[in-house]
């Protein structure tokens, strides 16, 4: 039998360095979210499409030697050809250039309106939620009333008062559109403000403005981004709707809504003219919606599976 002496054993103590070494690189919230978004093929496809769309909105109008307002009455309602890739409309304007001009306008309206909605809603909701009590009560009653006013009817009225135009459309949409975001942010802030890190910030003497902007809002940024992503297609749709009933951007400027409207007038003779605006409106709205779904899964830790 082998004798077991102390010398035969080697002490393996805890290797402090090794056990505390970080094996995988640490990830920030954004890296983590990005990693999860990358796994979502549908959302990534939407993102790629939207980026391409954005690039085309910038360079598209310069790819053919026509301006969006150039008329050529000798070449009206031509089908797609080598000179006019998407054909021409009833005034002989090149539809390829006009489609991308429309993309520029529709995207500008959609993104600007959604961002402004977001900013106003975040500030309003943040203040209302953080201060609570009477302040919250009054501010939220105002929101409740605004929420009850039919959105499109108010937008139409505002458009009338301010006259048609790009700035007007955005303003009209923002005046009515921020309410949803304010509600969302208020709800989030109400939950967050009871947590210890807010108390810690308060004890250190942070002002309410600092607490809201530096502590509360960054913690709700996920739902805010998701909500903005869903607001963009809604704004694009509203603009298309307004342009379609003749209240949107004015000719010769083009948006997808006005292009669709022009195309329906000659639909029986030249049905393909509706194809491009209809296709791009639909696919853009779809992409934003799918990207929003993907972002929601990626950014909202509570929905993690």
């Amino acid at each position, binding site marked *: 039998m082998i004798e077991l002496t102390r010398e035969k054993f080697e002490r393996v103590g805890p290797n402090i360095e090794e056990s505390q070494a970080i094996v995988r690189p640490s990830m920030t919230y954004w890296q983590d979210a990005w990693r999860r978004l990358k796994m979502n093929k549908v959302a990534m496809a939407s993102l790629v499409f939207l980026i391409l769309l954005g690039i085309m909105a910038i360079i598209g109008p310069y790819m053919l030697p026509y301006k969006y307002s150039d008329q050529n009455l000798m070449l009206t309602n031509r089908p797609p050809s080598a000179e006019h890739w998407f054909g021409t409309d009833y005034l002989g304007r090149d539809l390829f250039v006009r489609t991308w001009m429309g993309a520029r306008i529709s995207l500008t309206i959609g993104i600007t309106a959604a961002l402004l909605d977001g900013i106003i809603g975040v500030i309003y909701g943040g203040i209302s939620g953080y201060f609570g009590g009477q302040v919250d009560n009054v501010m939220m009653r105002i929101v409740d009333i605004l929420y*009850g006013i*039919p959105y499109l009817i108010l937008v139409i009225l505002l458009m*009338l008062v301010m*006259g048609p135009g790009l700035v007007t459309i955005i303003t009209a949409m923002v005046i009515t559109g921020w309410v949803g975001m304010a509600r969302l942010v208020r709800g989030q802030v109400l939950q967050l403000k009871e947590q210890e890190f807010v108390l810690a910030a308060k004890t250190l003497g942070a002002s309410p403005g600092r607490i809201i902007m530096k502590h509360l809002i960054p913690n709700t940024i996920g739902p805010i981004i998701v909500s903005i992503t869903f607001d963009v297609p809604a704004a694009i*749709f509203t603009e298309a709707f307004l342009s379609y009933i003749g209240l949107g951007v004015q000719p010769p400027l083009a948006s997808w809504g006005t292009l669709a409207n022009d195309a*329906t007038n000659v639909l029986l003779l030249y049905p393909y003219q*509706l194809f491009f605006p209809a296709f791009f*409106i*639909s696919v853009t*709205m779809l992409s934003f919606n799918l990207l929003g779904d993907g972002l929601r899964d990626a950014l909202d830790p509570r929905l993690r599976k």
Partner: protein
Amino acid sequence: MLRYTFERTIYMIVTLWVIITLTFFLMHMIPGDPFTSEKRVPEQIRQNMLAKYHLDKPLIVQYGYYLRNLLHGDLGISLKYLNRSVNDIIKAGFPPSFQIGMQSIILGVSLGLVLGIVAALNRNGFWDYISMILAIIGRSVPNFIIATLLQFWIASKLRWLPVSGWGTFAHTILPSIALSFASLAIISRLMRASMLDVIGQDYIKTAKAKGLSSTEIIWRHMIRNAILPIITVLGPLIAGIVTGTFVIEKIFGIPGLGKYFVQSIYNNDYTMILGTTIFYSTILVLMVFFVDITYGLIDPRIRLGKGGR
């Protein structure tokens, strides 16, 4: 419940008042008066016309007149359609809009519910994909494009249904279908999610353990519980359908209220715009009110939860 109803009623009244006031003053900020486009008339006649419609009084007095008449249910006289009161025009224009709106809501909600339920019960099956595709179409294709395409293919190419106009039931089919897509999409997705949520609950397991038949579980336990959250989206949904009728009526040439509304905008017809806006808003606000009350009745958590959600 009484207190909740009372609270909701106050909200409704205040909302309506804000809408009326806002519309009134916005309306009068529009440059020009309704007679600027008329032929040049002597100043005296112009003044008489303004006086007839009280347009020469200070704004606040006009506002008082308007509110007083409104309380009597009188929306005033159209400034463009001579001697036709706004009430008359609404009476003539509302029935077609109402019929199309109702048909599309019934179609959208019932079909959406069925699709949602079937999709949840066959998760990742054939019907789940069908409902997903329909939901994607409804969510991303604007209703005016759906309407134009339906009109083009079904009416003018295949000649199954009339292209446009009003009169028979056949005229109402395509507009209703075009309008119902959005609600179909929302309802079917929501119902599917809600059903999946309920299917995972413990009381379904209990019901199964008790040996209930699956039909009974689906009808009595799943659908009854899953349908609750649907009620909350009905309000906004109805709002979407009502404003959707503007374009749909334009496309299908339906003599409805939406057409009058859009026309009165071009005509600068103050009383008509005011009247139709208030009428639309009242309907929408009333709808939301009934939805809120119904939800409060069905789900006690809502009315006890201090009104917040």
